[in-house]
């Protein structure tokens, strides 16, 4: 029987004679399209952020610059070339992810927006190392973080387009309050993504067992939620 790799509990009523038809069967914690898109996105984000820091350094918005050893491109022309090449990977992969997640029910099943109380409860549990991690289930902190970083990603792309094309995409430029304001919005969207990345990597360091399934897919019982 073909089955969807990311589907939740079997919604069919108990068939009777054989109460556990799926016993012993497994499905991946993370289906392959999700893993592929995760690592493509990770690559795109690293290239975008590091080349973006080099571009920032040509005309800093604040009283600091990013040190050359953590930037990409060596000089402004190289950094722009990386940035405007990797943007295609970021955008195409991002659109694929949003389409995949909404069409197959991944967002509905796994990314239900958490309420503030849930987030608070799970944050306290996480900070006191009492938050249990179950493969295949995103806790409220994870869901809040993933939804936030998706929003920051959309904001980064929209404000980036406004900086790149303030004349042709004037409606985006106007939306963010003009060319200079778009640069600030783009910077804060980057800061949001980098902030997410810091927390994300910290959580992986705290619960290292979550890393292998993002590479190999891992195995979950069909009966698992």
């Amino acid at each position, binding site marked *: 029987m073909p089955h969807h790799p990311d589907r939740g509990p079997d919604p069919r009523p108990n068939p009777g004679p054989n109460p556990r038809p799926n016993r012993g069967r497994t499905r991946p914690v993370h289906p392959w399209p999700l893993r592929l898109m995760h690592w493509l996105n990770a690559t795109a984000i690293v290239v975008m952020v590091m080349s973006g820091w080099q571009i920032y350094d040509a005309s800093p918005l604040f009283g600091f610059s990013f040190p050359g050893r953590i930037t990409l491109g060596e000089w402004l022309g190289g950094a722009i070339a990386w940035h405007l*090449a990797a943007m295609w990977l970021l955008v195409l992969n991002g659109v694929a992810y949003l389409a995949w997640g909404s069409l197959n029910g991944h967002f509905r099943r796994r990314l239900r927006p958490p309420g503030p109380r849930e987030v608070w409860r799970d944050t306290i549990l996480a900070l006191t190392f009492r938050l249990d991690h179950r493969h295949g289930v995103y806790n409220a902190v994870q869901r809040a973080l993933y939804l936030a970083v998706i929003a920051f990603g959309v904001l980064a792309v929209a404000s980036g387009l406004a900086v790149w*094309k303030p004349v042709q995409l004037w409606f985006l430029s106007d939306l963010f309050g003009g060319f200079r304001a778009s640069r600030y919005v783009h910077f804060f969207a980057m800061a949001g993504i980098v902030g997410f990345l810091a927390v994300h990597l910290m959580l992986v360091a705290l619960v290292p067992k979550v890393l292998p399934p993002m590479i190999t897919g891992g195995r979950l019982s069909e009966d698992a939620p």
Partner: protein
Amino acid sequence: MSDALDRRRLLGRALAFGALSVLPGCNYDNLQHPDFADRALRAMSRWNDRVQAALFDPHTLAPTFPASAITRPPRFNAFYDEAHVHVVDGASWQLELFGNIAEKRPWRLADLRAAPQESQITRLICVEGWRVIGQWGGVPLGWFLRRIGADTKARYVSFRCADGYYESIDMPSALHPQTLLALDFLGKPLTPPFGYPLRLRIPTKLGFKNPKSLVALGVTNVFPGGYWVAQGYNWFSGS
């Protein structure tokens, strides 16, 4: 000099991407031997040229601003500093014409002054990320190209400058109503740091696509490139 040579390296060492920098054939020190990453990034830059040409709408105008928004004092920028500005003698200056143009007689300053003039207060965005607002006046390039019998179906308009700088733009951008052969800046004739006696002013492209102190203008189907483009900036660089 060594700094200039450094910058000529098209695309720098990919510090965090050890895997990329150990690919066979990598040579980051010589523009004549671009490595794999250089080639890939150049191909993407050419793709971005095509996307920008498709995105360009000849009827979309760059925003204009009130006189109160003009940046004062104006900001000088070039590939050398202000002490080394090339000073052109306006009396003997003329604009040479070359390529697919019917009437190649050179134009003198008085000829350009006698042509229809337009003035605009627009924004100049530098590739570095800063922007200034200024007022430029001069002859619409579209009018000029038609007046000299240029082949407006050709792909490129090419510019050469008194200081050795060179640039080129696509024909649709050249024919855009806000693209000027500017003679005036802030209500007075251009001064040497800002491109005396004649510069291109094109508010639908980045600042480095606005060459100063023009000495020749051509129309061609052969890609003319540009000073910064040869070092790795994107050619179309439209706003």
